[in-house]
């Protein structure tokens, strides 16, 4: 039976279509813009709209992540690196476009050719939606015992992927620490300590009273929210990853307003490095405990020795799964929060170096952040 | 462990030991040289032992291992290989003596590396001679190419490095592009690469396929210096003379033709060879090469270049005999390997002795030297006679058998080419003797010795021995050939 999308019956589809068009328009603007700052701002916008679209597609977890990562961290790092490099890209000569254009068009046509055989958009009977995906929906409550299926799949069914994902963040943090250091340059020279992020901040610090007060109110709230997201992940959208990003952003905001060295005194780079690896250790450690108790790696049913598990969870509870998921989410949070902070330290700590080389930089741009 | 296995292990082990000990004693040249000579002499006895065992009807065998299924490293001596092994090991003993005299006389650098590589080359030659299948043969064939490269590039200057490049480029290039695919194809068609009496491929392949395989083998074994892959041989003459003498008169080039001979005899067999159209083309090519290389030799002013081109011609004899592949031709070819080996090594050693004594390489400069170096030039005369195929040298018999079998097999062009080449040999080797013995009136005094006392005794004695050997073959070759032929079927 041919499936047709019930555009009118499901308003989210209509909403989604509108957002999609918006996304396409933003992308067109990115393609033609040459100012890097504009491109970055538009990219941030793109990811935020994409996050909205994810909500329309019933994927709040993804939307949450996309918003904090794409709209938050990515944009921030991009801005930081623009600050460290240059402001606008050089135009591309049309002759250089020929080959990429052909390649891109070929690939596009290939995909469209394939898309023709994919079941219609939104078809509940499509193979993608009807097979394993549905199994998760039916079995999660029985086997894992938490309502947020995405969290269950993420942390339990495909917990190994998530361990991998955490490791990727860890590896990226290690990579950035290798390449850009730990921001030690910001601490190294007391005379320039406050210039670390933005030279303007030092001379004009009095203008920022409002900012500092507001930030002082906000940062504890952000921490609190981060923890809420972490522990709320089982029942609603959220989880360790989003929580980690929020915590990291709280630190970054602190650094932006109070200066990198202040932040680094409270949260030293060495601690961030330790946190990043500790997170992965916690995650993998949970798996190892499962193995020691006789289960497979990351089989949280064996988080506790079988008798204890029975005692804790009663007839049909899932104590092992609950505690296991929380434990690994804490690990993810630790790695992500510390890892992203370490990455930020790396970028932010690089600024004096560039400045001291007398690299030519255009006038500071006012708006944007 | 049977006696044969011990002999095979000794044949490989003695030169290996020699290479290792050369490095161990590299600080004490006297000890090193003594050890090398001792090893060489041991090997000569082993070589003789192998030959006598084979001719007594108990061919030594040894299975080492099978690195890949169907490709075994195994050794087994049949008469042809035993003959080659005996010849190579015997001549090596003499060459190592000669090499010591030459290297010390010429004060060459890097002597330890030289001896070590020479010894490894000998390991390879023994391996080739004793190989029980084409795979083993190929393995040692390549080892030979690689181990002789440092010998060719020995001097380390631009000219010798360039020669080394050409050398290794052609030899390795041909073997990996032609011989290796040929080997794989043979293994694919026959299931193994063993040398089998009457031919491994007999009755399994069509003439077309056989032709392709024959072409792959004949040109792949570029050590046989078949046109157009002959270029390495003249250019390798930059190497020190013992190398030219041992390797480029005996070991390397003979390994090339030996490979072809073994392949035509034991892989293809006379029937396949006779049915394949490629045989005819190659016989024509060989005939052409015999005449052409002899003509080129006449134009060369340098004595070693002349000898090299002569070698190209002589190798074509053996290849021609191998291509005809009937019993008599193969025997003749095998015998020619032997007689040419003795003759040509004598000539090279003479050239080396002249170089050590006077520093001369061009023939026109050698006027009157015959009077001052009588032993050397008498030996040179013997070598010349052997190459021409004149009595009282063994060259007579081998040429005789080759020419005769060529006529029998319906390849008169090959026979006539051989005859012509014998005549041409007078023109390219004769002048050396003429100029040295009977210098033109008023040509000036002979060149002075560069080194007090002329060529060292260690460099002269071996060439005298090989010259005597070449004459002795006149008497021994006939019986030896008959014995070979008689044994042919019994194995």
């Amino acid at each position, binding site marked *: 039976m041919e499936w047709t999308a019930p555009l009118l019956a499901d308003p989210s589809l209509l909403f989604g279509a509108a957002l999609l068009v918006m996304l396409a328009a933003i992308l067109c603007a990115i393609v033609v813009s040459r100012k890097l700052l504009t491109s970055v701002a538009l990219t941030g916008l793109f990811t935020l709209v994409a996050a909205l679209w994810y909500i329309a597609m019933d994927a709040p977890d993804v939307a949450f992540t996309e918003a904090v990562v794409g709209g938050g961290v990515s944009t921030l790092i991009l801005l930081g690196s623009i600050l460290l490099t240059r402001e606008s890209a050089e135009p591309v000569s049309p002759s250089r476009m020929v080959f990429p254009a052909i390649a891109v068009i070929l690939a596009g046509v290939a995909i469209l050719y394939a898309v023709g*055989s994919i079941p219609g958009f939104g078809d509940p009977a499509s193979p993608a939606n009807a097979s394993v995906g549905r199994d*998760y929906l039916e079995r999660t409550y029985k086997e894992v015992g938490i309502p947020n299926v995405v969290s269950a799949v993420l942390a339990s069914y495909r917990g190994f992927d998530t361990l991998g994902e955490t490791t990727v963040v860890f590896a990226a943090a290690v990579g950035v620490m290798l390449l850009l250091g730990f921001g030690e340059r910001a601490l190294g020279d007391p005379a320039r300590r406050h210039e670390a992020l933005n030279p303007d901040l030092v001379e004009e610090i009095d203008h920022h009273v409002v900012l500092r007060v507001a930030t002082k109110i906000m940062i504890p709230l952000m921490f609190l929210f981060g923890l809420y997201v972490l522990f709320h992940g089982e029942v609603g959208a959220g989880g360790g990853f989003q929580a980690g990003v929020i915590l990291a952003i709280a630190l970054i905001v602190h650094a932006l307003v109070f200066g990198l060295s202040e932040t680094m005194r409270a949260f030293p780079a060495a601690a961030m490095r330790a946190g990043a690896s500790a997170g992965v250790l916690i995650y993998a450690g949970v798996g190892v405990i499962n193995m020691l108790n006789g289960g497979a790696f*990351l089989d949280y049913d064996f988080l506790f020795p079988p008798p204890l598990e029975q005692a804790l969870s009663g007839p049909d509870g899932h104590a092992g799964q609950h505690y296991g998921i929380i434990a690994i989410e804490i690990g993810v949070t630790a790695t992500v929060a510390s890892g992203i902070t370490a990455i930020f330290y790396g970028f932010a700590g690089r600024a004096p170096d560039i400045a001291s080389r007398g690299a030519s930089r255009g006038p500071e741009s006012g708006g944007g952040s | 462990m049977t006696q044969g296995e011990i002999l095979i292990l000794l044949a490989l082990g003695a030169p290996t030991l020699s290479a290792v000990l050369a490095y161990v004693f590299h600080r004490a040249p006297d000890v090193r040289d003594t050890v090398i000579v001792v090893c060489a002499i041991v090997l000569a006895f082993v070589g003789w032992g192998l030959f006598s065992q084979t001719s007594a009807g108990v061919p030594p065998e040894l299975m080492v291992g099978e690195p890949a299924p169907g490709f075994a490293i195994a050794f087994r001596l049949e008469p042809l290989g035993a003959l080659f092994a005996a010849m190579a090991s015997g001549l090596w003993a003499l060459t190592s003596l000669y090499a010591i005299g030459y290297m010390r006389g010429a004060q060459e650098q890097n002597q330890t590396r030289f001896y070590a590589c020479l010894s490894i080359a000998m390991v390879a030659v023994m391996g080739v001679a004793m190989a029980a299948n084409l795979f083993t043969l190929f393995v040692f064939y390549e080892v030979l190419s690689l181990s002789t490269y440092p010998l060719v590039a020995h001097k380390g200057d631009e000219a010798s490095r360039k020669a080394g490049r050409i050398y290794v*480029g052609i030899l390795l290039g041909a073997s990996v*592009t032609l011989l290796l695919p040929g080997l794989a194809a043979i293994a694919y068609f026959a299931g193994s690469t063993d040398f089998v009496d009457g031919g491994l491929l007999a009755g399994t392949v069509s003439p077309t396929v056989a032709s392709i395989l024959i072409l792959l083998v004949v040109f792949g074994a570029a050590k046989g210096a078949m046109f157009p892959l002959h270029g390495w041989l003249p250019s390798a003459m930059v190497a020190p003379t013992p190398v030219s003498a041992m390797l480029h008169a005996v070991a390397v080039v003979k390994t090339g033709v030996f490979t072809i001979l073994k392949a035509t005899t034991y892989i293809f067999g006379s029937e396949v060879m006779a049915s394949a159209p490629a045989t005819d083309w190659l016989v024509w090519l060989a005939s052409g090469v015999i005449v052409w290389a002899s003509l080129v030799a006449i134009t060369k002013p340098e004595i070693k270049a002349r000898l090299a081109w002569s070698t190209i011609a002589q190798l074509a004899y053996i290849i021609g005999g191998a291509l005809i592949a009937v019993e008599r031709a193969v025997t003749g070819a095998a015998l020619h390997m032997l007689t040419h080996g003795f003759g040509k090594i004598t000539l090279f050693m003479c050239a080396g002795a002249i170089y050590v004594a006077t520093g001369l390489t061009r023939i026109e400069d050698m006027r009157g030297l015959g009077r001052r170096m009588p032993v050397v030039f008498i030996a040179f005369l013997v070598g010349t006679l052997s190459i021409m195929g004149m009595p009282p040298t063994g060259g007579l018999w081998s040429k005789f058998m080759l020419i005769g079998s060529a006529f029998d097999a319906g390849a008169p062009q090959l026979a006539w080419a051989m005859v012509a080449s014998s005549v041409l040999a007078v023109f390219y080797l004769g002048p050396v003797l003429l100029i040295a013995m009977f210098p033109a009136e008023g040509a000036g005094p002979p060149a002075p010795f560069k080194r007090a006392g002329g060529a060292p005794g260690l460099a002269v004695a071996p060439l005298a021995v090989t010259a005597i050997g070449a004459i002795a073959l006149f008497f021994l070759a006939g019986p030896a050939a008959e014995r070979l032929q008689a044994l042919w079927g019994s194995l």
Partner: protein
Amino acid sequence: MIGLEFLNIAPQRFAEQAPALVVVGPLIAACAAVLAPGRRWAWFLCVGASAFAFWMAVVLASEVARQGVISYAMGGFPAPLGIEFRVDALSAMFALLISGMAVLTAVFSGESLETEIMSSKHPLMQGGFLTCLAGLLGLVLTGDAFNAFVFLEISSIGVYAMIAMGGARDRRAYPAAFNYLIMGTIGATFYLIGVGFLYAATGTLNMADIAARIPTLTSDRSIEVGLAFILIGLALKAAVFPLHQWLPAAYSHAPSMIVVFLSATATKASVYLIIRYLSTVFAFDWQVETAFMAFVLAPLSVAGILICSMQAAVDPEIRRILAYSSVAQVGYMTLAIATATSAGVSAALFHLFNHGVMKAALFMAIGGAAIHLKSQRLSDFAGAAKSAPWTMTAFGIAALSLLGAPLTAGFLSKLRLIQSLVAADWGWAAAVIGLSSLIGVFYVGRIFEVVFFRSEPEGGSAVREAPVSILLPLWLLAIANIWFGIDATIPLGLAESAAGAVMGATTLSPAGAP
């Protein structure tokens, strides 16, 4: 079967967990290495964890040999729901190769890092290395298409940064690493899109499950395109011509430790995935696929073999010569795979193993010799054999193996390759391999000539003998090159059983006359 069974002394309970432990061990060690108080500790951890992974790989391989395919359900959830580690002979072979190389690289890394990277960053380098090791091992063991993507990224992300660390000696490392990052990520994203199509068509991510569902589908279109995207993505990662441009630059400017490890393993792991998709997931019996093999993969391989060999023959920098040669050698493997015969795959795997052994030795020797030499130019290695005889002799042995000289591993693998191509009636391809070997003679000869026969420059060569901790793994590899050239039981056994596992039993024995 593999000759290393004597190492299989783990208790049964340990052996059951081996598939997870082989990945988790290095992963935990990576975190610990980053936390390590000093570079010595990090180095010990690195060696220890690699050795542990190797031990587990041996246990795994012998278990596979004993009982066939091992399936390990991560998290205790059965296959299509959870992530499955599916270990067959093919995976086991790669796990052995990767972890074995890791042990040698780890030993090598101690002294090598000393001269190349500031010492405060050693723990990070070791941590990154171990992460990469865990990623590669996971990549070859997993039976889940998406999990493979994650491992692809784990094994790459740290590596990009570590390649860029070569910039302290030569700033060209930075753009090289950047290029690699872009290409690698495009490759990974293509792979991701391809997996998306497979998922859209079949609704599952487990490779075996996908393979089981493909025959039941009515429309092939998204499978075709999915396959195309996966293969292009993996070809980018495996540096298959013409998608190889990132590799020479990345290999020639990275720190030695990274090059040694990557040259022996990284592109190989992607080749593994290519084989896995072509054989296990698509089972070689699919029209589009066979057309692809014969008309796309084979010509590209041939072009890659010839063009990159020639580039190697003219390049002035020694590491880039070897890097170009690596691309050519990948071409050999894909060419043999393109025959879609069991013999071809077996020959490709055999060559892959041997190539890992020889290239690691080559790069290791250069890394060891070049501790005191900042330059990469071939001409600066003039007469190196005199000043560093041990290092350069090992280098020479490995170079001979690369050339395919008899009595070395390279020879046997070339022989197998030619044999398998002849058996598949691809005589022309065998000729191509011969031709490229001929070019190989030139570029290896060039290196040889400079290293062994050119006199040292005025004032002596800057090349010095490598320290013992480098000579040890180096000579181990050099001896392995000879050993596997004489007795190839181990690699051949691995390759044959691996090919047998994905292709059915090998049909080619030399007696397999038509």
